[in-house]
């Protein structure tokens, strides 16, 4: 009887944790950064890091060209297509590092018009965006952003 109860409790705990993890999402965006006379207000998604971006890349305006959000699960491969020219293939594993705070170890492949530019492994904590400096366009510098979003409370 006790074993049955313990088994049921363990199953419920596992089910709860799996369902909670299943709500994690990854947001990706293609951003163009430029220097203009009167910069527009930064997109809401970039507001927490906008000042750092300005210092690191040296631009005063950041615009999102396209973005996409999808759920991520452990060991499941996802295609992220924020724009028709840039897309990413992502395979996620739960990161065990303490500083990752329940984030993911991502295996990323970045493509530009069917050409694979780079493959990388990166640990991302929730709400900690990773920036990839892409090609330079006549309008400005192209950046690709990835961010793990924890489930909304």
């Amino acid at each position, binding site marked *: 009887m006790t074993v049955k109860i313990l088994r049921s409790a363990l199953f419920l705990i596992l089910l709860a944790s799996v369902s909670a993890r299943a709500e994690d999402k990854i947001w990706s965006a293609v951003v163009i950064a430029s220097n203009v006379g009167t910069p527009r207000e930064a997109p809401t998604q970039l507001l927490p890091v906008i000042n750092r971006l300005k210092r690191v890349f040296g631009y005063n305006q950041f615009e999102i060209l396209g973005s996409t959000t999808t759920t991520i699960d452990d060991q499941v491969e996802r295609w992220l297509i924020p724009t028709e020219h840039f897309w990413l293939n992502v395979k996620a594993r739960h990161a065990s590092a303490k500083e990752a705070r329940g984030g993911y170890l991502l295996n990323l492949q970045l493509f530009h018009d069917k050409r694979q530019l780079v493959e990388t492994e990166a640990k991302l904590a929730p*709400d900690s965006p990773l920036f990839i400096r892409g090609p330079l366009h006549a309008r400005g510098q192209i950046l690709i952003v990835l961010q793990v979003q924890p489930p909304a409370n």
Partner: protein
Amino acid sequence: MKTFEERYTAWIDGKLSGSELACFERELDATAPPDKASAQQLGDLLRHHSDAPALPNADFFTHQIMHRIASENPEPQRRRSWSWSIPRLAWAGALSLLLAGALFKTIILPDVPKPVVDPYFAEIVDVRTFDPNISATPVYNPKDNVTVLWIEGLDYLPASYKLQ
């Protein structure tokens, strides 16, 4: 008109005479006959020994008397204890807390460095490219706490290249 007490004192001292003495003795017989003989004895005694003996060392005599009185009536010793009342204890506790808080804030707190809370964490573990002309470098700026994968050697995209 003299009171009874005045006439009684005068009678003991033997200062009543004549009709006044006879009148008072009749009154005394009627009110307190048992006291009459003893009161008369006291009056005789006082009259025969009216002068008190002279004391050559009056101070020493007084001291001895006072010492004897003190030894026969010991002063109750005050019991010292720490039994404070509840409100007194509460006030003492509150004041101690205030004092401790003030000391902590002024002496200990300024030496403790305040931790910088920045939950940002993005780390590039491994990176590889597939074109010898392209290089990718992880860049982490500790000052700005931002991680960037910096790709160099990519083709310039002209204005004719539609991004959207």
